[in-house]
């Protein structure tokens, strides 16, 4: 029988940067060009209608205002300037951030000034809230990825873990008539997929990517099958999960913009933000974290020093399933009831967030927020009858990730032992 070929991850090495054209300068040229293009193009397309960014849920209240054409040109020029500044070959991340924000604002000035009369405003509270809510499942999913992959197990099964969590949460939550029981069941549902991933990749050495893909299909089939057999026949008995309400946090909710957007929210958002903090601290400040990272980078060395490599991997993969399962519950225990394939690719965006965030919890959070913003922008542009098709905004996370791994936006490197099974001996 053919043994499927074995190759290591980075057999093709990117050419070493030498001479004047460093990565920073190349990106700088790209950014400067984009900035100039934005200034010209968006400036020409924008109308002189005043653009307002209101600090509330609607058109009311204080607002930051600017003339549409002026804004489009101004922010485009700022982006171009940031690109030009990159020739100093310093402050790469900051300049890139300023440049990207400039491009987005220039684009928004055009879009908002071009909107139908009376809609020439963007409610910031609304946008921030939407961004965070849409990012919640991505944050959970990406954190699940961090836990797995930092210990050297590739987790392509995030989609399946989220789906199983959503399903188990809805089913058990309905049967027990308790959202909390549903939440626990959701965690166990995600852990079930993780358990399969762990057993087959760690014990039976099945390729981790293959297993992840197959588990996604298994979760899709299993939940779809049980949905049609149980939930569709008796919706009230099996699929009317109780929902967590919204919780307001005193004091913090008084902060302008962020307060009403973030701290009049739900359990899942708070949990996601806390988890980012906890996992960040645990990963970089505790003994467990050090061991996890060492197992993910060089398992043989870790083993030599007495770390139980396989045990640690089992534990982390299961933990990842629990986290993703809770993320899945944010679908069914908050707003909706379960439907077939309700995750719809969000698990893969979470994977993209993990990679885009360079396998770190805080990076994953920022990437998830960026993708959540792209999502929310699609909703907003749809509401103001934009000419930009929402499908192209939906592509944004995926395209951004491709650019990132191609080394155009920043150096992206996975944990060294990620995806390689460890055989003791």
């Amino acid at each position, binding site marked *: 029988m053919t043994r499927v070929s074995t190759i290591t991850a980075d057999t093709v090495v990117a050419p070493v940067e030498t001479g004047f054209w460093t990565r920073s300068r190349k990106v700088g040229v790209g950014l400067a060009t984009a900035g100039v293009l934005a200034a010209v193009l968006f400036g020409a397309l924008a109308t002189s209608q005043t653009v307002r960014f209101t600090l509330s849920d609607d058109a009311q209240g204080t607002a930051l205002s600017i003339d549409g054409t002026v804004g489009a040109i101004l922010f485009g020029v700022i982006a171009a300037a940031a690109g030009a500044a990159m020739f100093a070959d310093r402050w790469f991340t900051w300049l890139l951030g300023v440049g990207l924000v400039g491009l987005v604002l220039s684009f928004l000035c055009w879009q908002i000034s071009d909107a139908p009369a009376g809609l020439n405003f963007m409610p910031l509270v609304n946008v921030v809230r939407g961004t965070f809510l849409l990012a919640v499942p991505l944050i959970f999913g990406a954190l699940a990825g961090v836990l797995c992959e930092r210990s050297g197990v590739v987790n392509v099964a995030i989609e399946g873990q989220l789906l199983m969590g959503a399903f188990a949460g809805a089913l058990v939550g309905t049967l027990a008539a308790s959202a909390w029981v549903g939440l626990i069941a959701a965690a166990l549902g995600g852990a079930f997929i993780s358990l399969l991933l762990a057993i087959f990749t760690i014990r039976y050495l*099945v390729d981790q990517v293959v297993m992840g893909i197959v588990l996604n299909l298994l979760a899709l089939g299993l939940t779809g099958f049980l949905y049609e057999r149980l939930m569709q026949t008796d919706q009230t008995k099996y699929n009317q999960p109780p929902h967590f309400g919204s919780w307001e946090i005193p004091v913090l909710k008084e902060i302008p913009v962020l307060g009403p957007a973030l701290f009049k929210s739900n359990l899942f958002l708070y949990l996601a933000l806390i988890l980012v903090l906890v996992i960040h601290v645990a990963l970089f400040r505790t003994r467990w974290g050090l061991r996890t990272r060492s197992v993910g980078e060089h398992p043989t060395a870790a083993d030599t020093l007495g770390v139980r490599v396989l045990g640690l991997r089992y534990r982390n993969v299961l933990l990842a399933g629990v986290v993703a399962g809770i993320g899945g519950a944010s679908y069914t225990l908050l707003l909706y009831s379960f439907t077939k394939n309700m995750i719809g690719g969000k698990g893969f965006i979470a994977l993209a967030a993990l990679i885009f965030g360079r396998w770190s919890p805080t990076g994953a959070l920022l990437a998830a927020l960026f993708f959540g913003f792209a999502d929310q922008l699609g909703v907003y542009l749809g509401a103001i009858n934009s000419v930009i098709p929402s499908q192209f905004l939906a592509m944004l996370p995926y395209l951004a990730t491709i650019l990132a791994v191609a080394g155009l936006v920043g150096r992206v490197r996975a944990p060294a032992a990620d995806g390689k099974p460890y055989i003791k001996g």
Partner: protein
Amino acid sequence: MSLTEEKAPEQKKESFGQAFLHGLWAANTVTVTILAVVLALVIGGILIIVSDTEVLDKYSYFTARPQDALEASWTAVSEAYANLFKGSIVDPAAVSAWIGGNGDWVPVFRPISETLTYATPLVFTGLAVALAFRGGLFNIGAQGQAIIGVVLAALVGFLVPLPPVIHLIVALLAGAVGGAIWGFVPGFLKARTGAHEVINTIMLNYVALYFLTWIIVQKGVQNPTRTDAISKPVDSSAQLPRLLGDDLRVHLGIVLAVAATWGVAWLLNRSTLGFELRAVGNNPDASRTAGISVTTTYIAVMVISGALAGLGGANMVIGSTANALTPLVVAQIGFDGILVALLGRVKPWGVALAALLFGALRAGGNTMQSVSSISLELVTVLQALIVIFIAAPALVKAIFRLRAARAARLSTSLAKGW
């Protein structure tokens, strides 16, 4: 277990027979595959029972009258699997009606026709994934490549007026080119920047999906008589002709699929490119030292792989499954192609057989759904389970206590990180 025992022939010489049985019980490919299917069907049966509320009610008085519960379970499962068989291979009732003279021949061949129809695109996507595998690349993007393929094939199919045979050929070529472009991108990025093809193909799948949902609703593409997301139908001149008359859905695509299998087998085993491809797949460093251009090979592999997947996609709109673009027009053929490639042990003819099995499950699943009202999703579960067991032969061996011989060569596991 009985399945494999039945296959043992009449034993003339005891020693030969023993040797045969011994060999059969060893963990060879065929044995493991059959046992994996058996295991999957057993788990599927359990799922059917636990999801049937009527049967479950009978279990509530299991201790009082166990036969009730067991009988009900047996009926539910056996009926479901009987329909799976009738829908995919042959329906005995139709055969006896035909022989008795009060039936037509069409129902007799319908199950086989359905099986072949569903198998056709899977052969293409399975070959796409298998070919890339052999070249050391994991092409998860067959789904996206099939989507771009289906879009281009359909656009040619209803926007470009051409004479009959040429129209079909151009539509097929358009599908292949679409897939090839979508395969080129990750191949190029892998070769030039080292960007991992698994990540990029996953991302491109979704880019392709959103492109599809966008293009369907554009003016000139969307069906003007409809408000939902569906394109104009493909001209009949661009459609693959049906092989057994209009009542049976099997079409020329299956012949093309067999030809493609032969072609890929030739490419892999007989051509220079195939040799280089396998060499790069086995050891890129050694290949580079030997003077093979690894980067060129990666790009070539992904382009050919993409073209195959694109052809599979084209089949979905110029075959007999659909004749217009919808958001779900390619179903899951790309992801199923990964399973098919693994089940076929990444060998071309193995892939064709695996596609046949998956096609049969899908065709039978339709009958199972319509007659026994058991959700088609069960088929997805069965397919995933079969591949899980195939991928972990050690587990199947442990369950059935198979002899360990040749087990090492069965391993489909490959170490591939990001």
